[in-house]
C-alpha cells in the first residue's frame, strides 16, 4: 500500500468522522443508517454487480446477523464477543447451505430460490414466538460494552464508519487480485472463464459466502442502531431497494454502489415534501430507465461527464517492443519424438446420432495440425471433447501420460490445453489487459504463495500481459474497453489470452473466419511464432488458402471418422477427400491440385 493510498484512506476516514461532529442527533441517526445501507449495497454489489449472481437473499443475511447476535447476547446471555462469533458461525453455515445448492440454478431460477429463502427467513422470525419476539421483534436491550467502551451514540457511529471502511477495503483488495478478476469473468462469460482455468463452482460459492458474511456482520452492527430488531426491516421491500440502489448507481462498480445507496437513501429525506412517500415509484422508474439507457448507472454518467470535461491528455506511446521474447522458458516435452497428445478411439454419441466414431491421431510439440472436413463431419465435437465440454465420451485423450478425456474445462486448462472460440468470447466488463490476465488464472491459482508475493506476482503478470499484447500489436489498447475492439483485434486478444497461460497446446476454432487479408497474414505469423516456441497447435479451419501454407499436417474427418492424415497438399489431392467435399462426379473429372 503506497503512502498516497494510505493517506487517502486516512483522509476519508477523518472526513467521515469529522462530519459526525457537525450533525445533530436526528441527522446523526440518519447518517449511520445510511452508512449501514451503503455497506450493504457494497456487499450486494459484489455478489450481483461483480460476480453476476442475482440472489435476493442478501437482506435476509443482514437480518440473520442482527437477530442472531441479539438472541445470543440478550436471550442466552452470552458475552458479546462470543455472541459475535456465534452469529458469524451461524451466518457462515446458512450461507453455505444456500450457496451449494444454488450452483445448480441459473438466472431467474436463482432469483426465485433466493427470494423464497428470504421470505422463509421473515416467516420464521415472525413465527418465532418468544425467542424472536414474533412480529413485534426484540427491543429494549442495552448497547454493548466492549473493553469498557460503550457502543452507543458517537462511539457507535465511529464503529459503523469503521465497518464501512473495512468492508470497502476488503472488497477493493479482492478487486486487485486474480480472484476479483475471475468473478467478473464468470459474470461476463462463464464458459470461456472455465476454459481459462477458473473453477466456476468454487468461485461462486466463495463469493456467495463472503458477501453473505459481510451482510451478516453489517446486520450485527445494525442491531445496535436503535436497539430494536423486527422482521419487517429485513423484508423484500428493503431487498428490492438495495437492488435498485446498485442498478441506478452503476452495478459492478464500488463507487456505483456507494453513489446509488447515498442518492436513493437521501432523496426521500431531501425531497420529502415534494414527492411524499411515493419515492419508490420513481426508483422503479429510474431502474427501468437505467437498464434501458444508462446501464452503467450514475457512476457511468459521471464518468462520461468527467471524460468530456477533461482535455485529452497525451497518452505516452507504449514502448514498441520487437518480437516477443518470453521471460521464461517455454516447456519442452520430455521426448521430442514422442507425441504430446495422443487420441485413441475417440467417440461420442448424442442420443441416436454418432457424431464422432473412433478417431485416432497424434499431435507433436511445435507442430501445427489442421482438422478439416465437410459440414457435420465431427470437427467441432472432436475439438469440444478434448476441451472438456462433454462429461461423457468414449476413447482416450492423453497429454503425455495424463488422461485428459472427461476432465472439466477448467481442469483441462490447468493441464495446459487452452482453446479459442470461433465467435470471440471475451469478457466485456474487463479491459483488454484484464482479459489477457484471465488467461493467466492458473498461474495465480496454481501457486501457493502468501499475499505479499501475490501482489508481486500480479505486477509481474501485468508486465508479461503487456508484452504479449505487444506481440499481437494490441499494446496501445491495453486499457481500452473490449467492446471497442474490431473483430480481428478481438481474435488477437483471444490468442494473447491463451498465450499467457504458458500452454503446451493451443486449440483454434476457425481462427481465420471473418478476417481481412492483412489480419490473416498477421494471424499466420503469430501461429508460426507459437509453434516455433514448442507449443502444439491444433486448428479447425475451412479456409484452405490460409491453412495449406501454414499447417505441418492435416487430418480430414467425414461422418465422424478420420479419412486422411498427411501433409496438407497430400490430403487435398486425396481422391477420398475430394469426394467427401465435392461428390463423386468431380473425382472422375480429375480435378486435382
Amino acid at each position: 500500500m503506497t503512502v498516497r493510498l494510505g493517506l487517502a484512506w486516512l483522509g476519508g476516514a477523518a472526513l467521515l468522522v469529522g462530519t459526525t461532529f457537525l450533525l445533530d442527533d436526528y441527522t446523526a441517526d440518519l447518517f449511520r443508517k445510511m452508512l449501514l445501507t451503503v455497506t450493504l449495497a457494497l456487499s450486494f454489489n459484489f455478489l450481483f454487480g461483480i460476480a453476476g449472481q442475482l440472489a435476493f437473499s442478501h437482506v435476509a443475511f443482514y437480518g440473520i446477523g442482527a437477530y442472531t447476535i441479539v438472541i445470543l447476547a440478550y436471550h442466552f446471555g452470552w458475552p458479546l464477543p462470543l455472541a459475535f462469533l456465534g452469529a458469524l458461525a451461524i451466518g457462515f453455515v446458512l450461507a453455505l447451505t444456500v450457496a451449494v445448492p444454488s450452483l445448480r440454478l441459473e438466472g431467474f431460477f436463482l432469483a426465485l430460490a433466493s427470494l423464497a429463502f428470504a421470505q422463509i427467513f421473515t416467516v420464521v422470525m415472525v413465527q418465532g414466538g418468544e425467542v424472536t419476539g414474533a412480529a413485534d421483534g426484540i427491543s429494549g436491550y442495552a448497547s454493548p460494552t466492549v473493553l469498557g467502551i460503550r457502543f452507543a451514540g458517537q462511539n457507535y457511529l465511529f464503529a459503523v464508519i469503521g465497518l464501512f471502511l473495512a468492508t470497502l477495503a476488503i472488497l477493493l483488495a479482492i478487486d486487485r487480485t486474480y480472484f476479483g478478476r475471475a468473478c467478473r469473468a464468470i459474470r461476463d462469460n462463464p464458459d470461456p472463464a472455465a476454459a481459462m482455468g477458473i473453477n466456476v463452482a468454487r468461485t461462486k460459492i466463495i463469493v456467495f459466502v463472503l458477501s453473505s458474511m459481510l451482510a451478516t456482520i453489517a446486520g450485527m452492527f445494525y442491531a445496535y442502531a436503535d436497539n430494536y430488531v423486527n422482521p419487517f426491516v429485513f423484508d423484500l421491500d428493503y431487498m428490492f431497494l438495495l437492488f435498485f440502489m446498485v442498478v441506478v448507481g452503476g452495478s459492478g462498480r464500488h463507487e456505483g454502489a456507494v453513489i446509488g445507496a447515498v442518492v436513493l437513501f437521501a432523496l426521500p429525506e431531501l425531497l420529502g415534501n415534494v414527492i411524499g412517500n411515493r419515492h419508490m415509484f420513481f426508483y422503479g422508474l429510474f431502474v427501468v430507465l437505467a437498464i434501458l439507457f444508462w446501464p452503467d448507472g450514475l457512476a457511468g454518467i459521471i464518468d462520461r461527464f468527467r471524460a468530456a470535461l477533461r482535455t485529452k491528455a497525451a497518452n505516452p506511446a507504449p514502448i514498441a517492443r520487437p518480437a516477443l521474447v518470453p521471460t521464461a522458458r517455454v516447456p519442452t516435452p520430455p521426448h521430442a519424438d514422442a507425441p504430446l497428445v495422443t487420441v485413441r478411439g475417440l467417440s461420442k454419441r448424442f442420443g441416436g446420432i454418432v457424431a464422432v466414431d473412433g478417431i485416432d491421431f497424434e499431435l507433436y510439440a511445435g507442430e501445427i495440425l489442421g482438422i478439416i472436413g465437410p459440414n457435420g463431419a465431427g470437427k467441432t465435437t472432436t475439438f469440444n471433447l478434448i476441451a472438456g465440454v462433454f462429461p461423457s465420451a468414449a476413447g482416450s485423450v492423453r497429454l503425455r501420460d495424463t488422461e485428459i478425456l472427461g476432465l472439466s474445462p477448467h481442469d483441462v486448462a490447468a493441464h495446459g490445453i487452452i482453446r479459442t472460440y470461433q465467435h470471440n468470447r471475451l469478457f466485456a466488463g474487463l479491459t483488454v489487459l484484464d482479459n489477457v490476465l484471465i488467461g493467466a488464472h492458473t498461474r495465480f491459482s496454481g501457486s501457493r504463495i502468501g499475499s505479499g508475493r501475490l501482489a508481486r506476482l500480479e505486477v509481474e503478470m501485468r508486465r508479461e500481459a503487456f508484452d504479449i499484447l505487444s506481440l499481437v500489436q494490441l499494446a496501445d489498447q491495453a486499457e481500452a474497453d473490449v467492446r471497442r475492439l474490431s473483430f480481428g483485434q478481438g481474435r488477437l486478444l483471444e490468442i494473447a489470452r491463451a498465450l499467457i497461460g504458458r500452454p503446451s497446446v493451443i486449440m483454434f476454432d476457425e481462427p481465420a473466419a471473418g478476417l481481412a487479408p492483412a489480419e490473416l497474414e498477421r494471424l499466420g505469423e503469430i501461429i508460426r511464432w507459437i509453434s516455433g516456441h514448442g507449443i502444439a497447435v491444433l486448428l479447425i479451419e475451412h479456409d484452405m488458402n490460409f491453412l495449406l501454407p501454414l499447417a505441418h499436417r492435416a487430418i480430414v474427418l467425414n461422418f465422424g471418422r478420420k479419412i486422411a492424415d498427411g501433409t496438407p497438399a497430400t490430403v487435398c489431392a486425396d481422391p477420398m477427400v475430394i469426394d467427401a467435399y465435392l461428390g463423386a462426379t468431380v473425382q472422375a473429372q480429375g480435378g486435382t491440385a
Partner: protein
Amino acid sequence: MRDFVELMVSVGEAGGIYALVALAFLVTLRPTGVFNFALGEWAGLGAFVGIAAVVWLRLPYLVALPLIVGSTALVGWVSERFTVRPLIEHDAPPLSPVLALLGVMTMTHEGIVFFFGTSNQFAPSPLGAAPLQLGPIVAPSQSFLVIGVTAAVFAGAWYFFERTVWGRAFEAVAVDRFAAGLVGVNLRLTSTLAFAAGGAIAGLAGLLQSPLTSASYLMGLPLAVKGFSALVIGGMGRVEGALLGGLLLALLERLVLRYAPIPSGYAIGVPLLLLILFLLVRPTGLLPSKTIR
C-alpha cells in the same frame, strides 16, 4: 363427508387463483423466455380497478369485466413494448428484461398505493354475498365463481394452445423461435400478445380473489410467489401444469394448516419450501413439457 366437500371447495377456490397466476406466468414465459415478476402486482391492480369500477363507478359487472381485464392487459402491452422489446432487440444481456420488470413491479405497486391507499377494500361478489347451494355443496357464491371461471379459462387456454392454429403458433415460438419465424409467425406480435395476455389473466385472478379476502395493497407479492411456485411444481411447459400446480399447492397448504402441529402463520412456508425443493430436484415440474429428445 361434509368436511371433505368443504376442503375440496376451499382447495378449488384458492387453487384456482394460484393456477390463474401460474398461467399468467406461463403465457408470458413460454414465447418470450422472460420471467415477469410484475405479474403479482398486476393481479393486485386487477383487484383494485375492479373495486373502482364496481364500487365507485357502480358499473354493471358485465361492463366492468372487460374494462378491468383490458386495463391489466394494457399495462402488460405497454411494459412489453417499452421495456422488454427494446432490450431484446438491442441484444442486452438476457437478464435485463427481468430486472427492468422488477422496476415495473415496484412502479405498479406504488401506483396502487397512490390511487387506492393502504386500507383493505371490500369488493362484493358478482353473485351476491349469500352462500349458494349446488347439489350437496354449500359455499359462498364467490367460491363457485372462482372455480367456474378457472375451469373456463383453463379449458379455453388448453383449447387455444392445443387445437387452434394461432395457439400452436404461440407454442411454436417457444419450441423453436427460428423455425417459427421462418413459417411466418410474427415474432414481435407474439411477444406483445404474450405480455398482454399475462396481464389480463393476472388481473382476472386478482379480481376473483378480492371478494374472498378483500383487496389489499400487499396482495401482489404473495400471489406472485404462490403463482410461480405453482408453475414450477406443476410443470412450466404446459397449461395443465399450471392448473395441477395451483390445485396441488392449495391442497398441501390446507392439509398442512389442518393437520400439521405448527402455527398457521407457517402456512406461507408451504409454497416457499416446495418451490425451493422443486427448483433443486425437479425444475421441470411434475408434468414434463412435451418435447421429444
